[in-house]
């Protein structure tokens, strides 16, 4: 073990000297890699907002004197190019560039491939946005946690969105009969549908599935899918489409009067009304991947203040309202900041990544969308906000109708530590 510990020092950046009681705080800046989609269809609605937020927050932190006096040096990297490119990039960041922490990853595929590299190569990695619940779950419950010693996710997994949707639908559309699904053909889409289907069937046994479509990520022509869905005549269509795909789908669907016939339930649809604009259909069920909504005010004072500042500052810099990737980016960066500061107290100096990891487990910190807790399974849990799109004179795009908005508390939409989400749902009474 000692051998590995030393090699950690050798491999993982940040850790300078190990085993000394009092450690000096290095004067060199903290190298933080931030990986998001900077090119491709997912860039505009996702990667860029996320990356902007990293820049904004790093900027603010540096103005306030950095983390323990160390300034942040942000390395923005592109997540495009496929899983394999990401594996190679992450390795390079950890082993060659010796970054202190690797924040990032929007695609679940990237996360599943990259997070294991944390323990494998001895680097701290915080997944900031990707959703698959499998990332932190074991083969069967109860499973032991954490899945990765040095791998974290600073946002909640897709369980909250899809369980939330099921609960929401049960409440607002209790007597629907037929549902369908269109989800991207990889972990994200497959798992989103799995959780949603399991939850809906548990809550509303009468519902039956009439069609499931699996377009590939980055699909450009949804015509055939749209027709197929119209043909199947479902009451509600579940979709976890995100990024450019969500926008393209909406635009093409509008052309075929799709929304006049079918109601969509988007597990993470929050950014797209703003992205598409006033053409975006009303009466669609939209989930915010947490309580990440610019019109939402968290109950506790600190968070409420943060939200006010966050929305204002982001709007001032980038002329748009922050969308949930922005909130997730904030959470990742501040999870690291808080963990370092917490660990430094006990370590008495700059902490090793093991110490940071230890501090991050069970960490609770305020965020613009309320308090975030990272559990011992290294996964954050959040409440989830769901609403229905509605055009108002005040905004150039549909917002969530305040009268039909629901917030499901974290406890209601997150499986307990060590239990697989699916098993948990099936255990509902």
């Amino acid at each position, binding site marked *: 073990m000692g051998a*590995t510990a030393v*090699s950690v020092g050798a491999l993982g950046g940040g850790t300078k000297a190990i085993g000394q009681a009092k450690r000096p705080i290095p004067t060199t800046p903290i190298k933080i890699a931030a990986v998001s989609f900077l090119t491709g269809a997912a860039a505009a609605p996702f990667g860029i907002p996320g990356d902007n937020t990293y820049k904004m927050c790093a900027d603010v932190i540096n103005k306030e004197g950095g983390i323990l006096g160390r300034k942040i040096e942000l390395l923005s990297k592109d997540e495009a190019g496929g*899983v394999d490119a990401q*594996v190679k*990039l992450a390795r390079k960041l950890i082993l060659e560039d010796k970054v202190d922490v690797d924040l990032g990853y929007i695609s679940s*595929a990237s996360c*599943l491939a990259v997070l294991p590299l944390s323990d494998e190569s001895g680097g701290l990695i915080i997944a900031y946005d990707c959703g698959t619940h499998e990332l932190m779950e074991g083969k069967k419950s109860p499973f032991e946690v954490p899945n990765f010693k040095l791998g974290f996710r600073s946002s909640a997994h897709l369980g909250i969105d899809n369980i939330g949707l099921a609960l929401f639908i049960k409440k607002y559309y209790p007597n629907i009969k037929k549902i369908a699904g269109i989800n991207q*053909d990889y972990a994200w889409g497959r798992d989103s549908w799995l959780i949603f289907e399991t939850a809906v069937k548990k809550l509303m046994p009468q519902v039956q599935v009439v069609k499931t479509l699996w377009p590939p990520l980055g699909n450009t022509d949804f015509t055939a899918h749209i027709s197929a869905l119209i043909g199947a005549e479902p009451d509600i269509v579940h979709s976890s489409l995100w990024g450019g795909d969500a926008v393209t789908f909406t635009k093409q669907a509008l052309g075929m009067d799709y929304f006049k016939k079918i109601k969509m339930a988007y597990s993470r649809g929050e950014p797209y009304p703003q992205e598409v604009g006033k053409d975006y259909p009303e009466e669609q069920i939209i989930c915010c991947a947490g309580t990440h909504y610019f019109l939402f005010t968290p109950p506790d004072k600190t968070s409420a203040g943060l939200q006010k500042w966050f929305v204002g500052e982001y709007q001032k810099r980038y002329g748009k309202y922050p969308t949930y990737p922005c909130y997730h980016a904030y959470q990742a960066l501040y999870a690291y900041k808080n963990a370092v500061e917490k660990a430094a107290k006990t370590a008495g100096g700059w902490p090793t990544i093991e110490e940071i990891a230890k501090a991050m487990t069970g960490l609770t910190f305020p965020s613009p969308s309320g308090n975030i807790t990272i559990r011992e399974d290294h996964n954050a849990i959040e409440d989830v906000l769901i609403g229905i799109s509605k055009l108002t004179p005040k905004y150039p795009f549909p917002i969530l109708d305040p009268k039909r908005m629901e917030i499901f508390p974290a406890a209601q939409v997150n499986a307990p530590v060590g239990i697989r989400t699916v098993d948990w749902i099936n255990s509902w009474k």
Partner: protein
Amino acid sequence: MVKNPRWVAYVLIFILLLFIPRLLSIHDLMLFEYGLTFAIVGLGFNLLLGYTGLLSFGHGAYFAVGAYTVGMIAKYFPGAYSLEILIPAALLFSLIISIIFGFLCVRHTKIFFSILALSLSMLLYALLFKLYHLTGGSDGLRVPLPTLLGISFKGIRRPEFLSGTYYYFLLVLFAISCVIMRGIVSSPFGKALQAIRDNEVRAELIGIRVRRYRLYAFIISGMFVGLGGALWSFVNGHVTADLSHWVFSGEIVYMTLLGGFGILEGPIIGAILFTYLKLYAMGNTQYWMFVIGATLIVLVLLLPNGVAGAIASLLAKLKRKTVKGTPC
């Protein structure tokens, strides 16, 4: 042996390779191991392109077969997850697939062969991509550290594994592949393939069953590529359907040409060069495709025999000079 300076050189190079882990940083070492695995791929691919005169734009398929054999066994038969089982298994499956695909392909030559090979690899791609529950779809499969002869590497980090045991394992297999391929190309069998490459009509008329021997070449090449894929998967730690995409096959052709497919050693050099070229291009500019694309074009236009070819002809020139120099 000794009377042949070539072999002396080989032995010296091999000895040098033994010390590579001491010389390179862990990251560069990994790149080098990528290079070695691709070198094996290049050897196999070149038997078909350089020695039999068939250009396959679908050899990614056999690479994928090798890599997925490892990934699938890791997922479904973790009990059998040890190198001494995985490598033969990879060879077996690449054998089977290249028999099937090869049988269909060798009925054609030239562009038809290339396109058919491409289509078949894309068929495999489509299957790997679509059968999500079986193959992990576009997410692909993880490749954990295997055991070797009962030795488990649990708790050891991949870089250490790769710079230790695995490097030497890889090196030995690489050396064996080189020796075997050298034997094949200089053997009567190899001569027959070259005869087919040079003139298939006449080859038929000196009694060579052209189509059958093309198939043999195809299968052997497929197995080498499959072996390369399997070995690569441990270095990379993750396999995806892209391995069977024609663009990846294109990269295999690229590295072979970069080294030069006229010469046995060509693809080896090409593979290692390409790995560094691509990885550093990716690391240092967002326009890496431009870099390797431009390199390729320059290569095709100015250096058609590849780096090794250029070196060889240079040496030949020097030799002629010296011969001229000494009156006999």
